[in-house]
Every structure is written in C-alpha cells, then in structure tokens.
C-alpha cells in the first residue's frame, strides 16, 4: 500500500526489535521505563472516580475546562511568576506529546528548520518532520553535561531556522539548565529572532537548583511556547493531560488544529488534574525527594563499578557510557538483558550520536536499583 511521503520519511526505530525482546521476557528488572513507578496520588484517583460517578462524561471546551486552565495560571504564577491568560493563552492537550505536535504544525511552513539538541526525546525529530519541517540536530556531549551551548545555536541559526525545541530537564540525559545558562541561550535566540518550543515536563524534578522556565527571561515570553503536563510530576501518565502556554496567536492556531483532530482532552483526566493542582503539591515533593535519593545512589554505584556516569540535574534518568564494556550500547543492552535480565534503553533511541550510552531510569524502587547494579557489575566482571 502506498504511504504518504511525509510518514514514509520517518525512520523506523532501530531499537524496536530490542523493545520487543524486552517485552517478551519475564522476571526482568527494568530500568527502561520512562514513567514514574509511583501510583497517582489517591486523592487524584478518587476525584477521577467520583467525577465519573457524578456523570461528568461529556466533551469539554476545546481549550479544556476553564477551571483547569485557571488552576494552571495560578500554579504557574505561584511557582514561576509566569502570567498566562487562561482564556486565550492556555490550551489543554492530550499529554505534552499532542502539544508538541500542535506547536510544530502551528508554526512551521514546509522546509522550515527546527534545531534540536541531541540526545533528545524520541518524538522530537518525527513531530518536526510530520509537520513538514526539517529537524536539525545539535550534538551535545558529556563534556558540556549534554547541554547545548549558545555557540552551537548561534552557528546553526540563520535563514529558514524557525526555532529550537528545547527539552529540560532532559529525557534521556537528565540535563537541565541554570538561569544563567538559559540567559546566554536566550540572548542568541533573540539575536536570531527564533521561537522556542520549551518542553518542561520534568520541571518539578529538578534537584540541584531552582528550575527556570525560559519564558520568564527578559524579552522571551512572546517567543516561547511553554509545554508542561501532569504525567511526570503527579505520576499521571495514563490520564494523558498536558498543556501549552504561549502567545494568543500561536495558542489560537494550535487550538484550531486541536479542535479538528482531538476535540478535547478527556474530561476525567482534566477533573483529576484540577484535583492534583489543588491538593497534591505535597505528593510531588515527596516523590522528588525519593527520586533524588535514588539519583545519588545510582550515579555513585555506576561510577563505582566502572561505568562513567555524569550527575544529571533533573528528571529520573541517568545516561552512563558503556565504553568500559568495549561493546556498542545496543550489544551491551541485549547481552545484559539476556545474561542478567536487566533492561535499559540503548542510547541509539535518542540520537545517532548516542550509541556509546544507555539510558537508565531510576523510576524504580531502591531495592530494584541495588539489585540491578549488582547484576550489571556481575556482567562486567564476566566479560
């Protein structure tokens, strides 16, 4: 069957076969999961159940429930001193994934380019391509903590470059940016009159400094589409609720696409999200504290057994090198899975420059992490 060129150009994931191998195995300790191991806080689950019992099963406004948009406005104001009009500048989406897609489709004309620091989340490239744009990957390295530098952006910017897709804290590296680092990036962005699509889904899981949304920096608000959601901070991945904030014209354009393709996010998820904003701030902090404990353990333990691992500043991932094994990340991941039943994700999934790294998720219990490190050590010793 003939498939559209736009879809056909999306390269199939080279690690799909590895994923299938993992999914087919039992008794695996998995450090390959990209979602929290915590269950959604009970009050949030209870509100979702209650809302169904009360008969809230209809569509909502295309933009999402006004109560939720108002809640987001209040939350952003309190946490980051951001100011978005809930009527015109916020759109509730089906997770940040949809928001990313909408943002790209709203801003890109055919052939326009989006800069993407690599390693990056797997969907970043495809959403740009599916919107008719061209993804330009900027390779980062462990030397800069997997952070893109202002110089890299400056050199890549120019004619046809519409903007940059920045995800921080990063999936897969956990890298994040200080306010000072962001100010230097913002300077270049303004110089080249670029937009920023800023995926800050893991913002609440920033450990070593306070998270700074790039939209809050001087002169940036009107050139940033700020994306966030409830999946990671509130352990609500299955509820599929995200949101986009930005200038009214871009949000309006995104809403136009959203109303014809998605109509609205699930009312149950939106009801649950309202409850999360109202009453689950304490849960977020408790989860963050536990993730931080695990982060310190896993980085120390991996370095102790010879796998060089930088200390990430956020999210719940580390991105160690497999150089010590003498294997490619893919071979290491396969062999570790087959011999020691530990699953992790080969870096290849996150960019062509990442075949010497693996992503380890510490969204797994402390006991699991300890056992996994023992098994990795055993594997390394037997080599």
């Amino acid at each position, binding site marked *: 069957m003939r498939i559209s060129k736009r879809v056909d150009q999306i390269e199939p994931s080279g690690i799909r076969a590895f994923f299938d191998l993992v999914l087919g*195995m039992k008794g695996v300790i*998995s450090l*390959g999961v990209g979602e929290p191991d*915590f*269950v959604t*806080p*009970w009050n949030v689950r209870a509100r979702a159940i209650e809302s169904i019992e009360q008969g809230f099963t209809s569509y909502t406004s295309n933009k999402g429930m006004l109560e939720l948009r108002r809640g987001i406005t209040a939350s952003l104001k309190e946490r980051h001193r951001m100011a978005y009009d809930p009527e015109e500048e916020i759109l509730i989406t089906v997770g940040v994934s949809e928001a990313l897609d909408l943002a790209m489709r709203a801003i890109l004309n055919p052939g326009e380019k989006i800069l993407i620091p690599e390693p990056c989340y797997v969907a970043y490239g495809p959403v740009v391509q599916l919107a008719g744009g061209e993804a330009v990957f900027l390779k980062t390295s462990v030397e800069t903590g997997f952070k893109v530098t202002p110089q890299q952006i400056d050199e890549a910017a120019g004619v046809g470059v519409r903007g940059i897709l920045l995800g921080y804290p990063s999936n897969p590296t956990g890298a994040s940016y200080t306010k000072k680092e962001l100010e230097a990036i913002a300077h270049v962005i303004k110089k080249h009159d670029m937009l920023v699509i800023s995926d800050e889904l893991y913002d609440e899981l920033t450990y070593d400094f306070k998270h700074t949304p790039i939209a809050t920096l001087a002169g940036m608000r009107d050139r940033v589409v700020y994306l966030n959601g409830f999946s990671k901070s509130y352990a609500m991945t299955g509820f599929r609720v995200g949101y986009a904030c930005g200038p009214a014209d871009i949000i309006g354009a995104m809403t136009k696409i959203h109303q014809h393709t998605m109509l609205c996010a699930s009312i149950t998820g939106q009801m649950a999200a309202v409850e999360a904003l109202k009453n689950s701030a304490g*849960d977020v902090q408790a989860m963050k504290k536990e993730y931080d404990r695990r982060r310190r353990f896993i980085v120390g333990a991996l370095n102790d057994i010879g796998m060089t691992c930088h200390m990430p500043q956020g999210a719940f991932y580390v991105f160690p090198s497999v150089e010590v094994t003498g294997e490619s990340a893919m071979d290491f991941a396969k062999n570790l899975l087959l011999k020691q039943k530990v699953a992790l994700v080969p870096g290849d999934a996150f960019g062509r420059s990442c075949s010497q790294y693996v992503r380890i998720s510490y969204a797994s219990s*402390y006991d699991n992490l300890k056992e996994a490190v023992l098994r990795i050590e055993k594997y390394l010793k037997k080599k």
Partner: protein
Amino acid sequence: MSKTKSSPSTTVRALIEVSITPQKDVGFDNIAERIYSYPQVKSCYLLSGGYDLLVIVEGDSILMVADFVAAKLSSMANVRQTATHFLLRKYKEEGKVFKHSKGEQRQNISY
C-alpha cells in the same frame, strides 16, 4: 502518596488478644510484666473492650510464634483465653505507607 514496595521480610508477626483474670491489688500489671519480659514480645498494651492485653509477637516462623502462644502464653496462670491473629500484609505502619505490588502495571520498557 503511594510509596514504593517495601523490602521483603521473613519475620512472622502476630497480634494476640489475651484475656486475663486480674490479680488482687496489682490488677493486670504483674501478668503483663511476665508476658512482656519474653524477648519475642515486641509490644504489649492493656486495652479497654472485649479482652485485656494486646500482645504483639515476632518470630522467625509461624511455628515459633505458635509454640510461644501454646507453651508460654496460654499456659500462664491467670491467662484465660488467647486469640492469635497472624499479620498477613502491612499497608501502613508508624505513618509509613507500604505499597504492595499488584503486578507491575507499567510496560517493561518505554521511552
């Protein structure tokens, strides 16, 4: 919030309701002392209600706890009756919540 799964423990714990005939002048104190002096007794409370002492016992196996109840506790003078409840699952203790696996509901791997 829901916490992660606690580490597995092999210790067996039982809550034992103990009915006692109180002694003249000292009431329950002496018999309570005799009971709580056993090292396997981790807690001992005098309660109002249908029985007198709530005794929390730990052992390495069900047999060890059962032996303690049969050989030491039940046979003690002034102990009229015991009812032993073995702890099956710990949901919350001292403010700490224990999440019990309903089976890993996440997929083994995801982006």
